[in-house]
């Protein structure tokens, strides 16, 4: 890092700390007409409907179907707006059953979903195991269970859960579930081929739009991991046409653009999404890689304040992003490594592996990278970026039996 940049980042960080710590200056607004806050839930009809539903639930808070409906709608809103406050409202709707060891199945599925969104994976898995034991034909429960098992790198269990779907859900969903596990587990090329064939057979746009976006995103990431940039780009853009505001998709495509050095494209893609921490982070990375230093400074301050707020709360939800922030934007490799290691204890996806390897390289601490290298070996992970980093950390690294 150039000293000039380092000093500027330090100054930005110090200002951010000052701003985030003790709230700097409570003020008296100058005029009664001054608008202090714009509320998110007035404008669109979905929100109005949600408010009516909530009002009806307040009349009968123990009405199970009503409560489940309200919780589900809030979770959808949380997803749509990428706003975690809605998850809290969803939990409130489920309050009469929230603390039961074995709540009604509908509640248990939603509880698992909410626990998962807070990265409380072991608790989510306990609920999903109980639920699938109680209702072995609950396709949704098996699918969610497979996802959590994949995040926890328990690929054998995830494959078993996906297999349970075959008689319960349609072919594309079942195969997408299996391919998602297989692609992490030594069968990247075969999984990608199979999934592409099935999607083509289902006919372009024939499937449910949400499923299609999901499958397309998955295919794009598989192409990216084998280093086929053109295929990945085409698929990412096709998925974005279907779901232009999908937070995960925007983040994944931005990462792809950043790796390709298409910094201005990445910045333009994310410019309207600064409210979402993970997307603001990538926007700042695009500015930094593109040398747009003047625009970068306020974003660094804002990100520092946001991560600080998360840390004070004791949340572990954005450890992955925070580690990237510390490494790439603050240049603090040791702190980034410590955070990336904490994150690795919670979740084990390629992005989690990558930030840990990058931080270990920058901190010259190859011992810390060992669990990830071991995971890559034992799961036979194929990914051009991870393979490149692993080779830098350990020149003798190769995937025993894998096709690196």
């Amino acid at each position, binding site marked *: 890092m150039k000293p000039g940049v380092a000093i500027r980042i330090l100054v930005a960080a110090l200002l951010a700390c000052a701003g985030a710590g*003790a709230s700097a200056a409570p003020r008296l607004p100058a005029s009664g007409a001054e608008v202090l806050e714009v509320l998110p839930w007035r404008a669109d009809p979905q929100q109005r409907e949600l408010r009516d539903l909530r009002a009806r639930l307040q009349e009968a808070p123990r009405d199970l179907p009503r409560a489940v409906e309200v919780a589900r709608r809030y979770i959808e809103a949380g997803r749509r707006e990428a706003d975690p406050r809605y998850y809290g409202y969803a939990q409130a709707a489920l309050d009469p059953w929230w603390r039961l060891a074995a709540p009604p199945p509908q509640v248990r599925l939603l509880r698992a979903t909410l626990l998962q969104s807070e990265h409380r994976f072991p608790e989510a898995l306990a609920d999903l195991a109980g639920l699938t034991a109680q209702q072995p034909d609950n396709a949704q429960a098996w699918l969610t269970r497979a996802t959590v098992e994949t995040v926890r790198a328990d690929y054998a269990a995830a494959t078993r859960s996906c297999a349970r779907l075959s008689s319960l859900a349609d072919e594309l*969903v079942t195969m997408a579930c299996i391919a998602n596990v297989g692609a992490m587990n030594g069968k990247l090329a075969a999984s990608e081929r199979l999934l592409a064939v099935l999607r083509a057979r289902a006919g372009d746009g024939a499937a449910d739009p949400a499923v299609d976006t999901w499958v397309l995103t998955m295919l794009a990431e598989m192409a990216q991991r084998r280093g086929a940039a053109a295929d990945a780009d085409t698929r990412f853009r096709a998925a974005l046409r279907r779901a232009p505001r999908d937070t995960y998709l925007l983040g994944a495509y931005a990462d792809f653009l950043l790796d390709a050095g298409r910094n201005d494209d990445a910045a333009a893609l994310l410019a309207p999404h600064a409210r979402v921490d993970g997307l603001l982070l990538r926007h700042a990375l695009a500015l930094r890689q593109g040398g747009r230093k003047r625009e970068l400074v306020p974003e660094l301050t804002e990100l520092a304040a946001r991560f600080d707020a998360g840390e004070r709360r004791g949340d572990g939800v954005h450890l992955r992003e925070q580690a990237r922030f510390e490494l790439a934007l603050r240049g603090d490799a040791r702190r980034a490594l410590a955070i990336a290691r904490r994150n690795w204890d919670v979740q084990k996806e390629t992005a989690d592996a990558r930030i840990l390897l990058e931080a270990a390289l920058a901190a010259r601490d190859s011992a810390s990278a060992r669990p990830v290298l071991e995971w890559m070996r034992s799961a036979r992970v194929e990914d051009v970026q991870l393979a490149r980093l692993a080779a830098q950390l350990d020149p003798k690294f190769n995937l025993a039996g894998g096709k690196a």
Partner: protein
Amino acid sequence: MKRLWTLFTLFLACATWSLPAAAHKPSDSYLRLTTEQNGADVRGEWDIALRDLDYAIGLDADNDGRLTWDEVRNRHGAIAAYALARLHLERGGAACELMPGKQLIDNHTDGAYTVLAFAARCPRTGPLAVDYRLFADVDPQHKGLASVRDGTSVRTLVLGSDRPRATVDDGAGGAASGFLDYVRHGILHIWIGYDHILFLVSLLLPAVLVRDGGSWRAVGRPRAALADVLKIVTAFTVAHSITLSLAALGVVALPSRWVESAIALSVLLAALNNVLPVARGRRWAAAFLFGLVHGFGFASVLADLGLQPGALAASLVGFNLGVEIGQLAIVAVFLPLAYGMRSTWFYRRVVLVGGSGAIMLVAALWLGERLFDLKLLPV
């Protein structure tokens, strides 16, 4: 099948691979309590998001989605009543009486907050207990981030529906422990920071000798040695206190690689001076000059520990005091030993020259490591 798709959409909603980051922000409030020393009063300031208040009790009178200062101001009474009914303070087992004060506006990363001032009349003694239920019924994921300040110590608490109650330790013990932690860290840092020890030792080695022509001879009286040590230690202390404070308060910031390299260089030069004396009678000046650099090094440790918000001065003074205590302990061990051995050939040749040579070697390796970001030594 239709039903499965509805559920499927929902599943996508929360699958981790569909949400890389908690976006926007979960709901938090920021509660600051200040207890007066030996007083009955606790002062409070409570930042609560306007968005959360609107969701719970409604602030947007004209329902246009835009909260104006008038709309908020008109609801100040309702806000204070709602919030204070969900905060329960007690001291020594007896409840405190909460009285609302005025409200201002402040901004946090996720929007505008009301800043509710209040006073609490509490019993004089006993531990302070906080019971926090704000928004527990409408958003169980809401958290209250409280900091309780008592004199110089600040305790932070994270309160929420899964942990609504916490007790803050009472009085002097609590006040001292935060401060003492910093003192302890200061001592520890100078003891395990070999570069600081070697720098100090390099400067102190010749303190029991005087230069006589081209060679060293022992000082006659302990006073002369003591005066020399005192000058060096004082200069070093004053210098690093200055830069430690400047850096910790954010007035000056230097890249840590430069600082660490300059510290290694200072050790190298201090040791070199014992073999090829340049700064003979002015070692205190060298101690001052390089002490400035070491202060920046101390500051980076303090930055890792984190200064306690609201107790900045106490953390800083505590840490610095720890560094001085650690340093005096080193001097107290070193000086009698060196004074006892000062007239021996062993001290003048092996300890002074050989020791300085060894220090130079270590310092040179450090310098290489730090300049070129290598790893050569185990420490």
